[in-house]
């Protein structure tokens, strides 16, 4: 956990007071809606279909139990008793009142949480691997660097009015759980031949209307230079990114139009001017931030405790353990994913009561720490294996032990037309219907790893381009239709999915997905061949033939 110091806390309070003043000036009419809009967006406040929506940052996906309880409090006190975890380590509240927002922000500031730059054309929440610091084989904890970047990007005097939003993600593992290749800047932490820490820097990834996978701009940037290098990229983008067309304003378009070589050359020239400056991080500065992260005092525990051996006789426990429990870097401990995808539920939602239960369980079993992943699930990062059976019972009681992590019903979805003013079509009911179709966990287990992503419009908040099966809602003559792609992925092998055929109406989406899954089961080489690998081996055609033969 990173502990805020007096300076971090002061800045947060100053920010809340500034926003309180801005809301006051808006309510009195001193600020026009056009002027206020940008200010509220920079504090995470959108105007949605029914009400204001409030997006709170969970930097690099790490939460303390105190913080999670504060989120539960906001859900209860200012909203309708629940929150929605997003694909970028944020949580959204959908029914907040403008006049109460400053108070909600002040309550969150008490526990070191903020909503700064969770929307607007500025640098957004810096995200990372939800297993940071506990994943086996990790190069080093990427959150140290995420926090350095969080601070550097917060209220940046040069880059708070960019052409468009700007997202940075960091991973330090071979397997990319932070989806860095679909970010404006993706950072892969690794070591050079001299054993020094640095980053492969990728740039220009992003989804939306014109999706691109990020390209490598520099294979190794030394850790001490990461702020100046990021600053160089931002400066080139701030000056030359397009501002004439909102759909062409992301850095991916600039990178695409210039080409990565030319863009890289511009950045390099800028960086040569910037690299030896106050932005260079000396060891003391890095150490300063590192020292504010605390780590649990792990016990020396057996690999296979008796409690686990006994519980193995319970098939329900075993099914959950095999699905939701993952190896930890310390012997005797596990990482436990908490599925927020119950059968028939909206993906990523948690009630205030569930948040409180999770906080209590994290205090008891996970050294008071919770993680949030881009898949819209939570994780307890330090669970002793001997505690797994007891934890499972408690989670199951709270509806948080659905054994579907990484399976077909672990769906990523945006809020869609049920909430969002940009959406063309509903996302949540499609996800709910699919979880019912695949409610049989044994069947889902048989199908294996399969990611379905749903977006209610081309803005792609549900990351449909990179779903193994991607579902995109479009509007056709006033009706909801859905385009379906297959073969996308968001990890280290990131790829965009391919359209499988003509769009289908709302009522047929679940049938089509079932047909695709059936086609896969018939086509796969062996039960070990994942859906995504079958698509890669065979291409779209055999799927298309089977799905559209009868349509």
């Amino acid at each position, binding site marked *: 956990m990173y502990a805020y110091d007096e300076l*971090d806390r002061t800045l947060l309070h100053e920010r809340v007071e500034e926003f309180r003043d801005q809301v006051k000036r808006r309510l009195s009419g001193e600020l026009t809606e056009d*002027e206020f809009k*940008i200010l509220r967006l920079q504090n995470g406040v959108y105007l949605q279909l029914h009400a204001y929506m409030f997006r709170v940052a969970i930097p690099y996906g790490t939460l303390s139990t105190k913080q999670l309880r504060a989120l539960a409090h906001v859900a209860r006190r200012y909203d309708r008793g629940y929150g929605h975890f997003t694909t970028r380590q944020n949580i959204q509240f959908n029914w907040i009142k403008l006049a109460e927002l400053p108070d909600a922000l002040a309550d969150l500031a008490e526990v070191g949480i903020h909503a700064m730059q969770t929307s607007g054309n500025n640098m957004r929440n810096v995200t990372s691997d939800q297993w940071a610091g506990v994943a086996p084989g990790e190069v080093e904890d990427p959150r140290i660097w995420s926090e350095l970047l969080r*601070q550097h990007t917060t209220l940046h*005097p040069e880059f*708070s*009015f960019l052409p468009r939003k700007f997202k940075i993600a960091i991973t330090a593992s071979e397997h990319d759980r932070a989806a860095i290749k679909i970010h404006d800047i993706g950072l892969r932490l690794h070591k050079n031949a001299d054993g020094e820490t640095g980053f492969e820097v990728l740039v220009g990834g992003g989804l939306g209307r014109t999706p691109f996978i990020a390209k490598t701009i520099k294979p190794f940037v030394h850790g001490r230079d990461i702020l100046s290098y990021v600053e160089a990229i931002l400066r080139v983008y701030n000056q030359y990114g397009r501002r004439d067309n909102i759909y062409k304003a992301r850095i991916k378009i600039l990178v695409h139009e210039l080409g990565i070589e030319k863009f890289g050359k511009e950045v390099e020239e800028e960086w040569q001017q910037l690299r030896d400056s*106050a*932005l260079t991080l000396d060891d003391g500065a890095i150490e300063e*931030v590192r020292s504010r992260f605390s780590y649990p005092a792990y016990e020396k525990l057996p690999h296979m405790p008796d409690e686990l051996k006994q519980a193995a006789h319970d098939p329900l426990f075993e099914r959950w353990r095999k699905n939701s429990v993952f190896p930890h870097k310390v012997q005797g401990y596990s990482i436990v994913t908490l599925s927020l995808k119950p059968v028939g539920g909206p993906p990523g939602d948690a009630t205030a009561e569930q948040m409180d239960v999770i906080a209590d369980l994290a205090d008891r079993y996970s050294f008071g720490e919770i993680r949030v992943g881009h898949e819209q699930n939570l994780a307890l990062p330090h669970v002793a294996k001997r505690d797994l059976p007891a934890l499972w019972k408690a989670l199951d009681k709270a509806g948080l032990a659905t054994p579907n992590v990484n399976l077909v019903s672990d769906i990523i979805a945006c809020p869609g037309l049920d909430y969002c003013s940009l959406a063309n079509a509903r996302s949540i009911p499609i996800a709910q219907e699919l979880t019912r179709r695949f409610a049989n966990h044994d069947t889902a287990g048989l199908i294996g790893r399969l990611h379905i992503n749903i977006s209610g419009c081309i803005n792609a908040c549900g990351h449909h381009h990179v779903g193994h099966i991607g579902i995109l809602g479009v509007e056709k003559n006033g009706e909801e239709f859905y385009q379906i792609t297959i073969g996308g992925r968001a990890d280290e092998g990131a790829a965009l999915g391919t359209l499988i055929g003509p769009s289908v109406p709302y009522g047929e989406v679940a049938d089509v997905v079932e047909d695709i899954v059936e086609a896969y089961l018939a086509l796969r080489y062996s039960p070990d061949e994942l859906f995504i690998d079958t698509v890669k081996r065979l291409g779209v055609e055999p799927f298309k033939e089977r799905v559209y033969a009868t349509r």
Partner: protein
Amino acid sequence: MPLVKNGKIATDIYAHVADGAEIPADGAILVQAARFLDDPEALLRRPGKVGVVWPNNRDLDELVPYLDRLAAVALVFPSFRDGRAYSQARLLRERYRFQGELRATGQVLRDQFVFMLRAGFDALDVKKEKDADAFAETVKRYTVFYQPTGDGRTTALSRRTQLRHSESASP
């Protein structure tokens, strides 16, 4: 439109020369970039200070050779949402060491004052009277800054490092 200079409401000594208008024989003038580049030497020779209004989409390279003879550069925010002039301001101050008046013009509003000062502006053509009146209290909003910029405010990181050194030095 009130001018706030060095923290106080001030009289604008510059005559704003509209495109095509005659250039006064003496006194301080603020001219558009294209007009200035037509014959910079002639303008710089005349008695009186010269300031140039530089658009936010024009490369600074053309202006740099004249910086040490210019009394002011005015950068433009066509909308407060367009942040290009922040980069230009920092480049002028931090890279090209421009010492003259650096003025923000256009849609200059209260909620961007701190960003502008941090980027190196020392004169703001404030759009609303009320915002200009609130200048002093607005710029006190923040006392903590994460990024090092040319305005010289101490960053959080260096304050922490200093604190740590003083702690470890004490008995």
